[in-house]
């Protein structure tokens, strides 16, 4: 007998009623991102007050009327706007990669930066810096901008695949083995990076050190153009895998019973996490904890359903990174603080907070 028809009240209910903000989450986050970006436009080594912003952006008439406007335009269009755009996309990619990885491993502590996926990408990026030197021919040197993201993606993909291979057995993923394998992989990649540091010349050394700390100071339009297609493809993939990731919370066998092609879901998730992390890392260097903090806080407010969690993570990650980057380039102006230091200072306590909450619940 099929289930009888329910009550009138039941059919009009939204899922997860009792959770607030689910319907307004996306517009609200978009508004906050816009506000954060506008503030980020105005502050920095060369301050541009709000009153001059419309003219500098070319929104008000008779632009380029005076030298001040010309200077503002130069600062905005060649430095600040590409940097904010790239920072927002890096933040969105890192947060979404974290949320997907947590769904894949069914654990809120999974993060590409924490388990060596980001450092796998950084190792490959550092290799690209060292081995595309002019010693090996001008062509490679010329191709460095294109090679870096590809190398970082390959490095991240390799580490994610190794990680999944080690921690999954017969359809089950051991979280303890997963985290410990992540520690070991991070150690191996760090040893590799150390070796590259050892053989690098002074200029390469400076470039490599920049990966290790994480910074958006090198952001350009070209780099923003590398990030944009990955973000677009990533958002499309997020919409496609959202329901499968929800069902995966039941375990691989039961996700299959519920109609999910689990193997395909895992393949897409692993490739997307690797691409998003690798490309972000190739632009910004290793920035930890964005992928943990953002999805965790969002789950508390809007719930764990991935259809909303993944796009909300992209927007919140962008807000967090643009805010942190604005702070990074102002608190010790005219110098810049590496943004990785800021995100770790905020993120590590949140990570410990999750651990403390989980401690009583279940063994890893």
């Amino acid at each position: 007998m099929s289930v009888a028809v329910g009550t009138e009240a039941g059919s009009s209910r939204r899922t997860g009623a009792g959770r607030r903000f689910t319907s307004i989450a996306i517009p609200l986050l978009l508004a906050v991102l816009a506000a954060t970006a506008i503030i980020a436009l105005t502050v920095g080594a060369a301050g541009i007050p709000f009153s001059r912003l419309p003219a500098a952006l070319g929104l008000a008439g008779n632009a380029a009327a005076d030298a001040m406007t010309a200077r503002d335009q130069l600062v905005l269009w060649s430095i600040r706007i590409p940097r904010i755009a790239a920072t927002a996309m890096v933040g969105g990619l890192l947060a979404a990669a974290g949320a997907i990885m947590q769904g894949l491993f069914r654990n809120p502590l999974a993060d590409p930066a924490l388990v060596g996926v980001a450092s796998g990408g950084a190792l490959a990026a550092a290799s690209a810096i060292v081995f595309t030197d002019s010693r090996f021919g001008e062509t490679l040197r010329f191709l460095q901008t294109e090679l870096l993201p590809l190398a970082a993606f390959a490095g991240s993909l390799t580490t994610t695949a190794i990680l999944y291979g080690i921690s999954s057995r017969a359809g089950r993923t051991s979280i303890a083995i997963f985290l410990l394998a992540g520690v070991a992989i991070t150690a191996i990649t760090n040893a590799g990076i150390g070796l590259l540091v050892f053989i690098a010349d002074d200029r390469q050394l400076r470039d490599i050190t920049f990966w290790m700390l994480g910074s958006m100071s090198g952001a350009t339009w070209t780099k923003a153009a590398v990030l944009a297609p990955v973000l677009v493809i990533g958002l499309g993939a997020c919409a496609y895998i959202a329901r499968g990731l929800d069902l995966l919370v039941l375990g691989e066998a039961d996700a299959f019973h519920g109609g999910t092609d689990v193997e395909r879901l895992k393949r897409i998730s692993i490739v997307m996490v690797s691409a998003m992390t690798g490309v972000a890392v190739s632009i910004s260097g290793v920035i930890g904890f964005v992928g943990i903090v953002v999805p965790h806080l969002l789950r508390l407010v809007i719930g764990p359903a991935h259809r909303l969690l993944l796009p909300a993570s992209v927007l919140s990650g962008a807000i967090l990174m643009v805010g942190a980057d604005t702070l990074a380039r102002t608190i010790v102006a005219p110098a810049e603080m590496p943004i990785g230091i800021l995100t770790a200072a905020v993120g590590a306590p949140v990570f410990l907070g999750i651990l403390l909450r989980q401690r009583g619940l279940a063994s890893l």
Partner: protein
Amino acid sequence: MSAVIEARGLSKRAGRATLLDGVGVTVAPGEMVAIIGPNGAGKSTLLRLLSGDLRPNEGEVRLKQRDITSYTPRELAARRAMLSQHINVTFPFTVEEIVLMGAGERSVREAGPLVEAALDEVGLSHFRERQLPTLSGGEQQRTHFARVLVQLACGEAEHGPGLLLLDEPTSSLDLRHQIDLVEAARRRAAGGTAVIAILHDLNLAIRFADRLIVLNGGRLAADGPRTDIVTREIIRDIFEIDAVVHRSDDGVPYVLPQSMQALGPQ
């Protein structure tokens, strides 16, 4: 009537161990079958083979006259629903969100009444907005049963009577909810669903099912109506206990174990 599920010569090995050896099962629409047997008899392996989750080393499974391996996971989910044991949900999904997962791609508007009715049937309407990890083991099991009922109802609405597989569905339930669950499954059978359940409680299995399948050591030890299967001899051979078999007023047998200690060599 043609069988909903038909399995022939199923063998499954893991390394050198043989989990299942040449087992065949056919279940018709509206039939209720309980699989019984001691630990390690191959009950869960058989159920996972019938669900399409595992592939046999030998033999084949046909679901609704089609090779089960020819279905995509989504097509399969529309024709058979399965309740597993020990599902551990780590993220704070609410009861309602979990049950709605059974409805696949259907919108909340479409699936709302089904979700409501299933929650009502397992007695969890008042827990709709509670987060699953905060509930007791039995309440979580009932939530997953409701999810499986929604999946079954959605599939049957499109493809007619389907297959419901239950792997020890009553293991964490109190007595009242054991009966409730069994009766809910019976109602599905009355509507044409083929139901196969692994049950450890022999008396519940007898009450619940018209037909018992007995597995022992990976082989089919017996398959037939409950009155034929439930005899002192079979229980002694399979479970290695001595038991008295009585009949209740309606003629249904029940089993009273006499000694929980294994019998010596006979």
